[in-house]
């Protein structure tokens, strides 16, 4: 990886860790059924208490935690050797593409069906879009 690619990978790693932190915080409140600190009024609670936030019985933040964990591992493994650095970029792009599809679906669900916005979900959605953008950019400069 050249300096630019290293920097992009570092940013994606840090953003994935930030996403993971948010996911763990929100997930524990979903699992323990406790309140969420939320700057968007009662939006987080409305989202947490809605059945739509548990597709197939899985709490939405669990999907976020899994996705961000995967991204943390991928970005980390890319630092270990040059071969993996090249091979794993499409995996990151794939994961981030799934991530933006998921956060877009959930943001739609929040606004139009639950009628409440959870601040953490919104920040996580923006975070995933940035990771996706960085992955696309790195793919572009690599090609």
């Amino acid at each position, binding site marked *: *990886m050249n300096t630019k690619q*290293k920097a992009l990978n*570092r940013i994606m*790693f*840090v953003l994935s*860790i930030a996403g*993971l*932190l948010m996911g*763990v*915080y929100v997930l*524990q409140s979903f699992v*323990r*059924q*406790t*309140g969420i600190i*939320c700057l968007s*009024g*009662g939006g*987080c*609670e*409305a989202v947490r*208490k809605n059945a739509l936030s548990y597709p197939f019985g899985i709490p939405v933040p669990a999907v976020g935690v899994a996705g961000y964990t995967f991204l*943390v591992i991928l*970005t*980390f493994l890319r*630092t*270990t*050797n040059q071969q993996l650095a090249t091979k794993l970029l499409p995996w990151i792009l794939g994961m981030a593409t799934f991530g933006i599809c998921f956060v877009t679906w959930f943001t739609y669900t929040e606004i139009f069906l639950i009628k409440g916005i959870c601040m953490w979900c919104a920040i996580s959605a923006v975070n995933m879009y940035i990771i996706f953008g960085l992955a696309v950019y790195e793919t572009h400069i690599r090609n």
Partner: protein
Amino acid sequence: MKLTSETKLFIGIFTFTAIIIAVAMVIMTRPAKPIAKEYLILPTTYTKGAKDASVWLVEFSDFQCPACKAFSSVVSDLSKKYPDKLLVAYRYFPLDSHPQSIPAAIAAESAGIQGKFWEMEQLLFANQERLSEALYPELATQLGLDMNTFRESFANPKTKQIIINDRNYGTSIGINATPTFFLNGVKLNLLTPSDLTKEVEKVINGK
């Protein structure tokens, strides 16, 4: 395997994050201390059931909140089922997003002055879809209240202040959604109205 400096940096960041998560989990999983009864049930708070009951349930509620309506019938059923074992208290927590929640709470408080708080509470939830300034005198008439007294209390700024004080207290103890219940001073985390029945009966039956 020789680690690159980049790998070492990432391990460092990850370890630091893991420590933060571990510390946060320890702090967040500590059980909350129960709140004393005298803070949750004030002398002016409306209650039903035995005053000296060992089990007491405090609800922070909003008359315009659909979930509060759903829980209200469960609270009423519990109160009827355990009149000697359960004390139920109602505290106002009008949400900003509901324009009629404060006027409705004022109407309930005004009915309470004439001893008809719980009757008005039931009527307000039953008519939740049509809450309006015009509805409250109609409900008061239905309850046979003295209309002059009702209008006076409704217009009195002190009545509104009781509701605001309840909300301010609720906010100070971390309430940010309705309904929020405290059972013997411990905040309940409920998903459905049937969860409330389970929690209350668990304590009443000593399980």
